[in-house]
């Protein structure tokens, strides 16, 4: 992976001129590379990772992993149905997986009823959805490579040879 992407993936707020300095490239070069990645959809967007479990007003929101078994459709495969499902705003992530079911969804809602309603009223009744299994998430430890636990850092002695 291009080092520009490696840097941005770790911290999207690092400015192009700083990346340019780090990589020994011109700012212009970095800016145009970023623009190119944005255009190609390689850089999708820049967002902030928030540990919502620490937010009071958000604490009651619930997330669930939902396994969905579907009947693939002629000429359309899984994609058509997957799209119909992932377009619901409740669906945070959606994957086609191998194994005993087909789609794996991460669904988020204000409370347990919202998620239950989504499954009962939107997802399960869909034509070609064969079965669903819902797992409510109890605790989030790590997300997209970042450990969410607030860690004390820097146990090093402040000065040494």
């Amino acid at each position, binding site marked *: 992976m291009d080092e520009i992407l490696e840097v941005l993936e770790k911290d999207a707020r690092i400015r192009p001129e700083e990346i340019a300095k780090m990589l020994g490239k011109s700012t212009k070069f970095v800016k145009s590379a970023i623009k190119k990645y944005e255009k190609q959809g390689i850089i999708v967007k820049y967002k902030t990772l928030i540990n919502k479990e620490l937010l009071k007003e958000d604490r009651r929101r619930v997330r669930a992993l939902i396994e969905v078994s579907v009947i693939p459709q002629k000429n359309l495969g899984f994609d058509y149905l997957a799209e119909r499902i992932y377009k619901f705003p409740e669906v945070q992530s959606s994957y086609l997986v191998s194994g005993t079911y087909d789609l794996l969804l991460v669904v988020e809602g204000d409370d347990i009823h919202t998620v239950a309603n989504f499954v009962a009223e939107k997802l399960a009744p869909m034509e070609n959805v064969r079965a669903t299994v819902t797992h409510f998430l109890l605790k989030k430890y790590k997300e997209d490579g970042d450990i969410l636990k607030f860690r004390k850092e820097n146990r090093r002695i402040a000065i040494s*040879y």
Partner: protein
Amino acid sequence: MKSRDLRISKIANDLPPSGIREFFDLVLGMKDVISLGVGEPDFVTPWNIREAGIFSIEGGQTSYTSNKGMMKLRLCIKRHVKNLCDIRYDANNQILITTGVSEGLDLAFRAILNRGDNVLIPTPSYVAYAPLVYLCGAKAKIIRTDFHDGFKLKPEMIENFADSKTKAIVLNYPNNPTGTSYTKNELQALARVIKKRAMIVISDEVYSQLSFDFKHTPFASLPAMKERTIYLNGFSKGYAMTGWRVGYACGPVDIIGAMTKIHQYSMLCAPIMSQLAAVEALENSKNSLDEMCREYRRRREFVFKGLNELGLSCHRPQGAFYIFASVKKTHLSCTEFAKRLLKEEKVAVVPGIAFGNGLDSFIRIAYAAKFSDLKEALSRIAHFLKKHRR
């Protein structure tokens, strides 16, 4: 006080204390300091390595190991060094596992030095070399390398300083505190003089894995150098394993044998959990090593350019995680500069004199710190320089 002095041996009593102890205490007594004064990685040991350590304790592997170190680890090192540069060491009698490179250094000096010998030590250098030589009753002969040469040791300097009592020379590259390293050609030129003067080389290559601009060449891999080089390396810097205290020495059978003898009576062996963690480091950590190395290289560029923009002249370091910058233009001594920077801006750096006499106009900046800290530190240094502009 007097009677107390008598309890201490003359050699220990005369061992000069670090000249900047007071400054260190000042830093340690202050809160919320951004420290660019740390001689160790800011990364935590990669998890797979930590896990191997935990696993060894869980499994009840809590015993001594062979004095030489576990065969498993010695074989890993043998393979690692062979892949690196095609030098072949016999895991039976040419590799010794030490408690960090620090112990390796101590053993190396003790194994080869007689009272009255001298050892060439190019400076700026890591602080331990000269005192360890002194503890052996030998003399450290300091070779000052020059800022204008990028602090590189030149063959003619060795020629000029070596005399009939010169037993060995210490090489350290990539260097702490300058980050200077040597290409294969430059090393070959040094090797020729070293061969001519028939001295032993103690090569401290603990930063070898953090080489940014060219492939690191172990000194022992040069023609005719294997039989006169004590190759010291370890896990502290590359794998972020400073606290594990594990390193190794490779060298000729007679010298490793002598070092092992001293080691078996003093250290006995390196901690077994650290040795097992080191096996994991060598076998399965290439990705984390590469990732850390790329991160250091990016920081190097950022800090190097930042300092230059501030007018603090320095060379682009070729390895390790240090920059040795001149503060001459501030007309402050390095200690004064460091003290004021600490008090006024809460940024810690190490005064250059810690690394040798006559380095009064330099400071060592360690970029083993996260990017946001480096950025903030540079802007504080900028503020400081503005205030003290003459």
